[in-house]
């Protein structure tokens, strides 16, 4: 048997393999250049970018919890202009597909950001963060109202020809409805999931462990939530899905593929092991061999759900 095919295609987005790094967990990619071979990854999703640079939230911004962590980075970023001028040219030296994660405060910010990145061939796709629970001012929670979300995505659709991924929130209670709205608006891909709203309090100081009180929970703890949402969305919405949430091992990657994801993003696990994503590329290739499967595509959505008991 020839080497199993790792390449995947999500609509118009082609990736050499299905292992990407999740937004906000891989910096702008360059932070890892001396620690991991970026060129071996399926792709890199940048830290969320906004029109203007953003200072982010005051510390403390991260806290470990059982099987995961909370964060309230507050979307600190260098802004789209500095990214395009300073970071992208350096990133382009690595043969890695770059997806830009975009977020705005105003409805129009998203289209403006998309328009701005549209001319750059070094950007393979845009991912819209409409679901980050950390920024409270303005309406970052565009991701919780299907009608608004559909219009938002449509406005981005008009602004760029690049594949659009919409990143779903697990906090809405109705991920499928939101995913459908994203599809109506013209999204090509669904990314699921962003962090889960959580909180932790130090029992001695009585202070919330994050300066913003609440924050986003990520890591293995949320994996079953993510798998459930990927499963629901993949079956019911009919767009390719990127699975995200607590991925650390090849078993986890396979689990998300089976649930219906065509690719995955690795997040928090990178903090524990900067080479986690790269290792998963090797591990997945080996696993396909063990499974006697010729391509990643054979696993996508290949879960065998139980029928309803009579």
């Amino acid at each position, binding site marked *: 048997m020839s080497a199993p095919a790792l390449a995947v295609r999500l609509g118009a987005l082609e990736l050499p393999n299905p292992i990407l790094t999740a937004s906000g*967990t891989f910096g702008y990619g360059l*932070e890892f250049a001396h620690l991991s071979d970026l060129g071996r990854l399926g792709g890199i999703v940048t830290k969320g970018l906004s029109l203007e640079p953003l200072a982010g939230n005051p510390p*403390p*911004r991260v806290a470990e919890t059982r*099987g995961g962590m909370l964060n309230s*980075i507050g979307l*600190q970023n260098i802004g789209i202009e500095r990214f395009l001028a300073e970071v992208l040219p350096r990133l382009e030296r690595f043969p890695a597909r770059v997806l830009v994660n975009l977020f705005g405060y105003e409805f129009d910010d998203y289209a403006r950001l998309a328009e701005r990145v549209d001319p750059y061939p070094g950007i393979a796709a845009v991912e819209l963060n409409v679901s980050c629970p950390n920024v409270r001012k303005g309406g970052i929670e565009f991701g919780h109202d299907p009608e608004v979300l559909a219009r938002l995505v449509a406005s981005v659709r008009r602004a760029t020809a690049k594949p659009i991924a919409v990143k779903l929130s697990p906090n809405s209670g109705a991920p499928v409805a939101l995913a459908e709205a994203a599809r109506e608006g013209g999204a090509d891909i669904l990314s699921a999931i962003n962090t889960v709203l959580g909180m932790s309090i130090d029992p001695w100081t009585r202070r919330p462990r994050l300066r913003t009180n609440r924050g986003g929970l990520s890591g293995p703890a949320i994996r079953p939530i993510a798998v459930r949402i990927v499963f629901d969305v993949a079956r019911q919405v009919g767009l390719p899905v990127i699975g995200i949430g607590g991925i650390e091992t090849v078993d986890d990657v396979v689990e998300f593929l089976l649930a219906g994801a065509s690719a995955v993003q690795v997040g928090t696990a*990178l*903090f524990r*092991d900067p080479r986690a994503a790269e290792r998963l590329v090797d591990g997945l290739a080996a696993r396909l061999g063990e499974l006697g499967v010729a391509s990643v595509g054979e696993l996508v959505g290949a879960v065998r759900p139980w029928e309803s008991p009579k």
Partner: protein
Amino acid sequence: MIVARDAVARVVEVVPHPLPYFTLVLEVPDVYAEVTAGQFVMLETTGGLEPYLRRAFSVADVSKRGDVVVIELLAKVVGRGTRAMAELGRGTRRALLGPLGRGFDLPEAGPVALVAGGVGSAPLLLASRRLAARGVRFDFFYGGRSAADLPRRDDFARAAQAAGGRLVVATEDGSEGFRGRVTEALAAELDAGRAYRATYSCGPMPMLAALARLSAERGMPGEAALETEMGCGFGACLGCAVPHVSGRFALCCQDGPVFRLDEVRW
């Protein structure tokens, strides 16, 4: 500067001082021989998955044992990760990322003051070695809640003496040395006419904030190694924000952990 690498370190030994304080001695790649005082490592504390994230520790000392480079981490058991570290058996292997961050910009001439609060003394042990090697004279101000909170005080005393200086101890409960905070002990020395070209410090945030005030008042520059919560240690998570006088947030793991005292919004 050395490029950080992710390697596997071998445990040489764990020395209790006594607990909760201990020194963990690790066999590491040769690059560590060039580590700057104030730089740190991210250590996998258990082989298992709980706790999940690595933990940050200053490099407290570096030396050669035979052919191999070993580093020392001086740490305190405060939670799950440090508890696991204190129980590491000889020969155990653990992932180790480092050396990370920017260390102290140590001077060529003294006298200077090193100011430590509790286990914050860790990076200042290496700073002591480096200063001694350059023949820079320093006094070592070592503060803690009580005499039990001054791990390896004798090592610090010897290092200071070797450089022509001395160890000044301050305890909040008065169980040893000056009764009060270490910054008060330093202020007392200054009031008594002693002068330092600069301070190099590490310890709890309130201590460093007090030192920054003193430093501003007396026109004596200084650098401090800061501790923040860290998700990654290498600039990926943006979790380690330090309020900077520029109005932005600096990253403790990349822009620091050593900052000039007048750079930080305390």
